[in-house]
């Protein structure tokens, strides 16, 4: 006898993610899930992005999911912002941040006093793309030394994301990377991806990225205010 079921295997994970999102929205926090392969520059980009946002008076926190130890958290410590280390396996282990980890991390953050939460996902272009955490936006970092073919090799990652930070642009003179081919691959995998060539090292490309991020955040905030007005 066959019993039809038709249920999404990830429905529990997604339900928890939606709870996370409701919480973010009720607190007016914009949440960014940042993903990349190891070493593409997530931590360094966050360092600079958060410094710039801080100088505009915005309050940020980080959920640090990347594997092993507290190296990344220590790198961000000088920013004096709340950081939750979500992964405590001393030798690594998990391949992605799950919605339950984000849920648990929220208990440790001053939610009433934040504009942004950045989730640094685990370095991996495969698994993190599969999981919705309740974030408002997924961003993929691709650094130039990784090669032009990565979008085509990891299509789900590049399709799930709204923007791609093309990092380490400062290295361009030293590399053989074919930028037109890279752009073509990005467009072919996701023609709606917004691409920001940046350097976390020099800060090049940052004004456009920060403005874009701020406009996304204010759009979400406007929707939230409209909903609040309609409810009253």
């Amino acid at each position: 006898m066959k019993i039809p079921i038709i249920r999404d295997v990830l429905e529990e994970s997604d339900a928890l993610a939606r709870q996370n999102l409701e919480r973010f929205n009720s607190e007016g926090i914009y949440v960014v899930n940042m993903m990349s392969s190891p070493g593409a520059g997530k931590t360094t980009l966050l360092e600079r992005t958060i410094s710039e946002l801080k100088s505009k008076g915005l309050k940020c926190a980080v959920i640090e999911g990347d594997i092993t130890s507290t190296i990344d958290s220590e790198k961000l410590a000088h920013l004096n912002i709340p950081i939750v280390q979500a992964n405590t396996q001393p030798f690594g282990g998990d391949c992605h941040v799950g919605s339950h980890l984000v849920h648990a991390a929220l208990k440790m953050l001053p939610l009433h006093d934040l504009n942004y939460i950045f989730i640094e996902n685990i370095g991996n272009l495969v698994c993190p793309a599969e999981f919705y955490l309740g974030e408002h936006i997924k961003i993929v970092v691709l650094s130039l030394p990784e090669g032009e073919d990565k979008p085509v090799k990891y299509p789900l990652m590049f399709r799930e994301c709204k923007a791609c930070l093309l990092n380490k642009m400062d290295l361009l003179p030293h590399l053989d990377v074919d930028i037109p081919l890279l752009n073509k691959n990005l467009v072919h995998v996701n023609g709606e991806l917004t691409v920001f060539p940046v350097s976390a090292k020099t800060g090049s490309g940052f004004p456009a990225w920060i403005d874009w991020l701020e406009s996304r955040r204010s759009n979400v905030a406007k929707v939230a205010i409209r909903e609040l007005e309609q409810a009253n």
Partner: protein
Amino acid sequence: MRVAPNQRVASSNVRPEEVTNVALRVGQLDAVMPEALSEMFNLYRSNFNLPNAQLTIEEEAVSCRCKDCDAQFSLDTPVFVCPHCFGCRVQVMRGRGITLMEITISETEHEDTYHS
């Protein structure tokens, strides 16, 4: 990954041992390798509390709709470009997600329990 139809099985009066097959549908866009998933299922079968179950996996091809000209088409390579208007604003309609489709339970055993 949690393949856990146990709750539903319990609620419909089926004992876990009676489950002979679990059918999953896996989108080709997902990074799931059917062979690896089957292998894992075999290794962890007892953890799932389904000692007699097989896992069958159906792969779902990726199909899309063009947001510009509304054409529908399927993909065999990760080039999300409309073959009709060459537009790049393409929505994935199928081929994403992991779905538990159905479970099969052994009829004989089930009848036995029913009559007893």
